[in-house]
């Protein structure tokens, strides 16, 4: 399994033909206490860079973008009851949705762990 990162602070785990998407620890730290996550319905067709989800902190609503194009296979139902999972376990239990990989070549422009870390350090 390979994990990639976007400059919008999403992570994407790739396993075969499907991927799991969430927001990074850096992102949840910036957002603060998360009180609601609006997730896409199963079957939604996502376009790379398009709106995929909305995460609401106490203070503000922020868009989460699709790191690649594909179809939503499953949304994380646990976030409905416990949106704070995004704060406590952003890169594991607090995942947002699983999706198909429409175009594998789109993964090439994403960052690996090391480049994402230096990207965050530069902010």
């Amino acid at each position: 399994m390979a994990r990639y990162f976007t400059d919008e602070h999403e992570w994407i785990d790739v396993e075969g033909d499907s991927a799991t998407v969430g927001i990074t620890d850096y992102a949840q730290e910036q957002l603060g206490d998360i009180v609601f996550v609006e997730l896409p319905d199963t079957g939604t067709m996502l376009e790379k860079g398009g709106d995929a989800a909305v995460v609401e902190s106490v203070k503000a609503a922020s868009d989460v973008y699709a790191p690649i194009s594909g179809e939503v296979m499953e949304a994380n139902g646990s976030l409905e009851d416990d949106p704070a999972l995004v704060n406590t376990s952003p890169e594991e239990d607090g995942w947002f949705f699983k999706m198909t990989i429409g175009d594998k070549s789109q993964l090439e422009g994403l960052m690996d762990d090391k480049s994402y870390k230096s990207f965050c350090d530069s902010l």
Partner: protein
Amino acid sequence: MSDTETEDDIVEPGVLPLDAWHRAQGARMVPFAGYEMPIQYAGEHGGIVAEHEWTRTSAGLFDVSHMGQLLLSGPDLDAAVEAVLPIDLSTLKPGRQRYSLLLDENGGVLDDLMVSRWPEHLYLVVNGATKWDDIGHLREHLPDEITLNHLEDRALLALQGPKAADALARHAKGEHELPDLTFMRFGKFTIAGHDVTIARAGYTGEDGFEISLPGEAAEEIATLLCGEPEVQPIGLGARDSLRLEAGLPLYGHDLSPDTSPIEAGLIFGINKRRRTEGGFPGADRITREIVDGTARKWAGLKVEGRMPAREGAEVFSGDEKVGVITSGGFSPSLGYPIAVAYLAAEHAATGAALEIEVRKKRLPATVVPMPFVPHNYYRGS
């Protein structure tokens, strides 16, 4: 992912006396009202929800030094100020403070403020984002004999929460014992040898104090108060969620020149004698609205589910648009989203079932009484 807000056009933010102190406490600083201000702090007790809950259960220290502190003095001061504010100064005794409103000629709200009677002065606390406009407005409308002194060298700290009095009593010595300082009274005190004034008031709905102090003493006094086990520093984020739960309007969002105080339910800011006598800016409209009512009313909404409805969201009754949200967010104390809106009067009664449109979804919402969370003011034991 940016959640900052700029309240005016000042490009270079000003530096407040506690700027370095906030950064040393791990504050995340954001531009606000022309300054860099702490939105929340780091650490075990940091974060908007933790800071909010700490204030509701213990005591929080807020830096509100961005607000304007003004001293007015001069001959026939009361009459001059009554020509500008709808306040009845004949009933404002020394050592008392009262909420008032700066209105334009149409009765629109230019600012909301506190007026206190000092022995030879009136002391005003006005909003940070509007203070320069307020000073210009007051200077233009007050006679030349009235001196307006902007106390730019003073800081303002708010200590708020059910344990604020316990913590402050260990440090404040003055003309009153703290238990005698009831809600909306103030007095002169010393803290660590510095002359301060303390008012029993605030913007959270909790018991608490607003401490006006010399800017150069701000770090020492903030450190002293945060050294008490009950006290943690609290940022602007929790200040906003606390005041919203307390049903207190925020200027620039819930109040503006396009809103009248009667629409906003702030009739108490138009003192009784002035309601019949008039003689203040916008009196024609205000007195008419007091008699006839207003077409829209500022009201509280409980939002179903967990998705917050925020400023600008439209409110519907069926297909009819009946209002707009002016502030809204998730209530940490209640565990569900709350909002305030100007609603068509016929849809503003408690219990009215409405819908709020958020990202093309309709969220069911019910008009509820305010405050959302009961006030806990200290009116005497």
